[in-house]
């Protein structure tokens, strides 16, 4: 019985080997090419590359199949050579000799010999339209930042497009903002409720790369109540929110660049109560003799100048123009 099992197994093994090698044997018998034509693994026409860069050699490269680029039903999606070039030399000399062979025509890693402009052009060949029309004149492009500096093309999870991980990518270069984002007053960016790209269009050439045409227009997308126009407008508010606020984070409340009264005294003169010294009132409430001592503590000047972004009150002259009503 045991012998019978052994024979059956051996027959099975031979049958298996025969079935699996049949095409090659058949090819041999015809005297033609001994190697069956390689089939595409992920992208259309990728066999030229995946014959070597297969799941054993470059599993991370095949992960492009998880992305939009890997959607073969979309006739516009590329093959390897659309981005990396035909790379004839790379293909011919691959595996020869002991050293590294020649790189593909276009490589995107740290050790690439291709300029940033060349690399970006490979992407722009398809992605120049829409919000990337002005990419070439933006600061990123002109400081040798490439698409691949931020985007993971061969990864189904592109961090920079993820709401809770985008900052990891941006903070790689923007260290000052990394510090500021952790200040006590900040937009909910590190909490993942907003992203850098909520305000910045990194593909554009707008001033400060804002998503809208100006800083204020960008702020209004979430803070539309500040747009006015107001019956009484506060001049710097109408010009640029960033005159008083640092949106990346501050130690002063409400993202103010500096605390009242210092911030307010950067424009307003030293006469009257607005020239008061910065200081804290004593503990006795009776000693808080009025607004002349209230420019620093609590909301500072804004304790009384409540509607500092603009007032719609028709009340008496000082109420509206001084934003107390």
């Amino acid at each position, binding site marked *: 019985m045991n012998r019978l099992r052994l024979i059956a197994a051996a027959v099975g093994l031979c049958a298996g080997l025969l079935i*699996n090698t049949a095409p090659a044997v058949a090819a041999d018998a015809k005297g033609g090419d001994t190697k069956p034509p390689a089939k595409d693994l992920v992208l259309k026409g990728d066999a030229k590359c995946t014959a070597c860069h297969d799941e054993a050699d470059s599993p991370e490269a095949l992960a492009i199949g998880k992305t939009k680029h890997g959607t073969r039903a979309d006739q516009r999606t590329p093959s390897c050579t659309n981005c990396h070039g035909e790379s004839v030399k790379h293909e011919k000399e691959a595996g020869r000799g002991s050293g590294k062979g020649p790189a593909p025509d276009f490589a995107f890693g740290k050790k690439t010999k291709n300029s940033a402009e060349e690399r970006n052009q490979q992407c722009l060949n398809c992605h120049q339209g829409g919000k990337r029309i002005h990419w070439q004149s933006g600061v990123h492009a002109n400081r040798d930042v490439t698409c691949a500096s931020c985007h993971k093309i061969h990864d189904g999870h592109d961090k920079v497009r993820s709401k809770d991980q985008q900052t990891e990518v941006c903070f790689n270069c923007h260290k000052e903002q990394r510090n500021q984002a*952790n200040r006590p007053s900040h937009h909910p960016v590190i909490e993942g409720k907003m992203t850098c790209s909520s305000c910045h269009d990194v593909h554009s050439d707008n001033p400060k790369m804002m998503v809208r045409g100006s800083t204020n227009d960008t702020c209004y997308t979430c803070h539309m109540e500040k747009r006015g126009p107001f019956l009484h*407008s506060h001049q710097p508010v109408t010009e640029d929110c960033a005159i008083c606020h640092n949106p990346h984070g501050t130690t002063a409340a409400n993202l103010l660049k500096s605390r009242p009264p210092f911030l307010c005294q950067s424009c307003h003169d030293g006469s009257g109560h607005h020239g008061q010294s910065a200081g804290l009132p004593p503990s006795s409430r009776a000693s808080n003799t009025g607004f002349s001592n209230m420019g620093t503590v609590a909301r500072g000047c804004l304790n009384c100048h409540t509607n500092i972004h*603009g007032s719609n009150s028709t009340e008496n002259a000082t109420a509206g123009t001084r934003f107390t009503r």
Partner: protein
Amino acid sequence: MSEKNKMGFQRTLLATAMLCAFGGAYGGDDEVAMLTTPDSSISAGVGNWSSDRAQQGAYDGMRDNGAYGLVDINVSRRNEADGTWLNVVGRNLGLDPRDLSVDYTRQGDFGIGLDYSRIVRENPLDFNSGLQGKGDEAQRLVNITPGRGADLDLKIKRDMTGVRFFKNLMPGLDFNASFKNEEKNGERNWGARTATTSVPSFLTEPIDSTTRQLDARFDYAKDKLQLSAGYYGSWYTNHNDLVTLTAFSNAGVANTTYLSLPLDNHAHQIFVEGGYQFTPTTRGTFKASYGRAEQDDTLPTRRITGLSAAVAPYSLDGRIDTKRAQLGLTSRPIKDLSIVANLRYDDLDEKTPQAIITAGGVKVTPQDYRTIAGKLEGTYRLPYGYSVTAGVDHKDQKRSIPFGSLSDQGYDAQRAVPMRKSVEETTYRIEGRKSMSETINGTVAYSRSDRDGSSYNVIDNVAGLASANARNLVNPMHISDRVRDKWRMALDWAPVEKFSAQFSVDYANDDYSTKSGRPYGLIDGSAMIYAVDANYALTDEWSLTAWYSHDDTKARNRLGTTLNTAAASTKTADLRERGDSIGLGLRGEISSRLAIGADYQWSKTKSEYPQELGTGAVAATSPMSPLSDINNRLTRLSLFGKYKLDKVSELRFDYIFERWKTDDWTWQFSDGSPFVYGVNTDGTRVSFDDHQTSHFVGARYIYRFQ
């Protein structure tokens, strides 16, 4: 060979045979499919914070101690036959602030997406008050003995729902549209100097508003030409327009204070932009847009007897027209030289009528800005990966100076700050870069900006002497003459495959060029930051990251009433803020099933506020106390472990230690006691926990599938 071993050998042989016949082929396909099919995951668990964390939990929905649900989903399914995708991303679904988006797309053809997002901000301060009607238009402030009122939790909640649509109309032509509706509710701590007291009282700003945004655009891209055109509209509706606060004097007499709120407004913009590739190395671009913003809501105080002059309008009829245009050119005229140039025109024209509001002649003061800005920059590439960039930017801005009410001297008595009719700024910069090196890349850059402008418009000319009015002696910081120098050095160093480091130093210096005839405002300032980042891959399974950065910002501000800067009434503030941050990270795989990670973050800021008189004495005098430094410290240690149960599921455990400390005096009296509103009135007490330490433990089950 024993019987046992014989049986084992035979089974192995059989298995080998079957593998040869079928298994190998299926195994390879499975592996490729696994590597190329979009991933999905669902995770659910529970976590617990041991203590309240008012500061660090202001936005993440976990402010209070207790248990929280940890639920996230990320489903990404693709139909390989027709290229349709279904993406569902849900984050923090077990918490109050949460996100959910659903996308159904046939790639390259059409797509529709739905979004929901809730952002909650919980005020980190604790309010104990006699205020009634928190968050309402009608509020009543009952005077209390401090601490004997009700505890008020103030929070703002934003609920956004949105829909996105995409359709490819023909090859190269896409239509994109999105609509967002956001409901914002809650209340913010506010304040007011009421009608009968000079001391500010507490109240809340009631928030109940709706914003809507519609964005629709056509994008065309074909060969050398790309065009986009569309419409962006936004509408703001405030369901509150006026706060009526009833407060009580020390004698118990009720008084009413009215505070205006932002009114309904809307804005519309049409735009067109495009680019054309003249040659493979030369590209031209343009942008043009026209926008109109209007605010014509009824002014709520106008309908209340006694609050308006007879001449006051019933609505503002506010209108701002914005025209923008830009031309751009990028070119590489020779192989090693590239040029970027653009010219931008930005005209913000406020057409709001200059209506008279009060009997005293106070007017609406519309603000106009017309800015022309240009940029020219060239980069020359040298051998060995070196390049030099040089550029110049210029901005020329014309600004309106609206005339308010008339003073005795015939000058503008309404305005509090001198203004300029024009401001211009020119920036020159040069930068050297080395890139495309396998081990070292770096940048050295320098720029100088020089801002200047027309003479200041005098506010009042008391007794024929402009300098007699202190308001004429200030250089407002945003239009003041200023010379700004900036340096930047950055280095990327990767000496070996497994190690890389980045070093960067940025320094900026501002000189506000205050002059003897106008000595007040910001005098000078500086900002410096340096940072070191390093990554080290110990093995294929273990890696380390570390970073440190330090920043130091200074500003000197002078304030006075006469041209004598050494007078006792002159004050000079030397503001300084320093920050240090450290981050450490470890990722590793202990086995094929167990992965661990650790992150340590520590940051500290120190803010200094010394202020002295022109005589050299400390500025704040009795009863006021000078300001001490403010220190904020944050320490956070996060540990996690992920254990794979099988190919599709894993368990994740988290532990976080978090400590936040501050000696911020913002809401304190000088003796460190909590701030209390009012003198024998109000009594609202504001306090906060200046030392918040909390521990988090969490466990979740993660299921992955394709």
